[in-house]
């Protein structure tokens, strides 16, 4: 394995990639240690895919430096590539090749044994019959499973996954999370990009949040969640419905019949709950730790006071819509980040 084993496994220094006048990513500084599962978060078009493509040597940076295991992914491609497993975000395969031929082709190009191929196919439920069929007949989920097998089958030291759970059913997603845990337990480094926040919350230790090609922050998932307001939910049993909440009005109450949800800063939760119980006829009360999704949107909003949508050059959705706000008022649905635009 290349690299001296002491420094960070992945190091991006002022990474900038421009496509003509369009900025893909600008001035990105990120460092990932060995054995870490690191998440790259941001809506489509924020620059995640561009960053990953620079990491695996498909794109040359316009400026700045990329080092993976101490090597330049473009200049030292042949030395570095044996140690990398990569799953593209938009996985494209040769439709006329069977699953088996696809795996064999990629293994032949890898030029190394693929000790995990059989095991991975079994665990991801790719049967012999499936592998004997042309890939063109595969569903989205089956293609993604094949993509995961090819990215892990040669036991790479660094695994780069672009939206890895797209199209996977919940059972296979669980297997995928197990595989990720095994990878890190074995000391391998994983960098994944995603806009599925529960997935990132579950799998990643630290995350970098990017927007419009720029880094917003790099923090641990725990830190992000700790800093985020708690959800305090109250149920009233007097049948009066929405009412003035006095001092608690400042915590953005959202009413739904007899229920109200407040977002209370973590250091004010105890006094707030005491005050509410003392002043109001509360029948039930729950306090919930905020998820990464809300922490993420908080950060996005606080960066420029927007609703979290992202519009880099020329990359809006084809329907021209803004997918971030909508009826949830900027709150994400199903843990998905807003799909504001196409990838860059």
């Amino acid at each position, binding site marked *: 394995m290349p690299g001296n084993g002491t420094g960070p496994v992945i190091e991006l220094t002022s990474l900038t990639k421009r496509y003509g006048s369009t900025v893909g990513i600008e001035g990105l500084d990120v460092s990932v240690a060995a054995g870490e599962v690191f998440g790259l978060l941001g809506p489509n078009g924020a620059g995640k895919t561009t960053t990953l*493509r620079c990491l*695996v*040597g*498909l*794109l*040359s940076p316009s400026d700045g430096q990329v080092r993976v295991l101490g090597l330049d992914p473009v200049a030292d*491609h*042949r*030395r570095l*590539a*044996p140690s*990398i497993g*990569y799953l*593209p975000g*938009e*996985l*494209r*395969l*040769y439709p*006329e*090749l*069977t699953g088996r*031929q696809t795996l*064999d*082709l*990629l293994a*032949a*190009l*890898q*030029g190394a044994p693929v000790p995990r191929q059989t095991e991975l196919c079994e665990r991801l439920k790719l049967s012999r019959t499936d592998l004997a069929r042309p890939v063109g007949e595969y569903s989205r989920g089956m293609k993604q499973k094949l993509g995961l097998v*090819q990215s892990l089958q040669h036991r790479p030291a660094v695994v780069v996954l672009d939206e890895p759970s797209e199209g996977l059913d919940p059972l296979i997603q669980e297997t995928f999370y197990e595989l990720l845990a095994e990878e890190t337990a074995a000391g391998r480094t994983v960098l994944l990009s995603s806009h599925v926040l529960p997935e990132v919350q579950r799998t990643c230790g630290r995350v970098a949040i990017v927007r419009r090609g720029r880094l917003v922050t790099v923090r641990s998932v725990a830190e992000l969640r700790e800093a985020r307001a708690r959800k305090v939910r109250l149920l009233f049993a007097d049948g009066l419905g929405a009412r003035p909440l006095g001092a608690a009005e400042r915590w953005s109450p959202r009413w739904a019949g007899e229920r109200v949800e407040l977002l209370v800063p973590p250091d004010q939760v105890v006094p707030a709950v005491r005050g509410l119980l003392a002043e109001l006829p509360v029948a039930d009360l729950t306090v919930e730790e905020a998820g990464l999704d809300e922490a993420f949107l908080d950060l996005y909003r606080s960066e420029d006071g927007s609703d979290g949508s992202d519009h880099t050059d020329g990359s809006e959705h084809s329907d021209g819509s803004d997918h971030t706000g909508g009826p949830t008022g900027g709150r994400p649905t199903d843990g998905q980040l807003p799909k504001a635009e196409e990838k860059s």
Partner: protein
Amino acid sequence: MNPGTVSRRLPLVWLALHRRRRMLLSLLLGMVVFETLIVVIAGTIQPGDLFGAARGNPPSAFKAFSGSNGDISIASYPGLLGAGLTHPFWIALQLTVIGSLGAAAVAADVESGTIELLMTRPVSRRRLLAERAGAMVAASVLLNAAATLTIALGVAFSPKLRAAVPEGAVFTAGLLGCALAFSLTGPVLAVSALSRRRAYVVGAAVVLGAVGFALNFVALAWSPARPLRYLSPFHYYAPGDVLGHGGVPWAALGVLTGIGLLGLLAAFRLLERRDLAI
């Protein structure tokens, strides 16, 4: 080796040829049928019935159709056989192979996104291009071999044709065909190395072939345009002359091979510098 089994030694050559195996088989079959028709028709014409025999020779521009820059008229046995190696159908078959495999070399993989899977392996860009160029050359050689062997068989079985064509000339003409294909392969690969759309590469192949042929035709037909013939690869491709007089046109072979090598060199240079994802 089972044709469905991935070659571990040359996986990219295998991929290029495996994916287009049905098209290549069809083209080979088409070439054999076409050249068979040419030799059968040529073999059935009596010397006195050659349409140039009783009348004057056809216009000099027709030499473009017999593959001659000299004195080989289409109204002769070598000219008729040469016509089978310069006919628009023959050119179309060659361009189909070159355009299709040339597009698949780089541009089609970039356009479809499959390049992301290939080039994140320990595969250098030089190897990618070298294997893809190898697949193109192999397909072109096969196609020209099919044409050459068909004509060679026809000449061997027809005393009239055998008397008119010097020994070994058919194979030299086939070699010249390979050189012409290579002279188009290099530049087409350069376009593929630079492009992110397969349509550009196919377009480039068609333009190079069609414009090259047209330029040679116009230069032969219209004396003021005569100097332009040197710009066309078809000027250096004269199978009719080879079939009529024998010998090996080393200079023409050198020029055609040189054009191909220059194109190939440009392709390697262009591919080294480009981004491999859109």
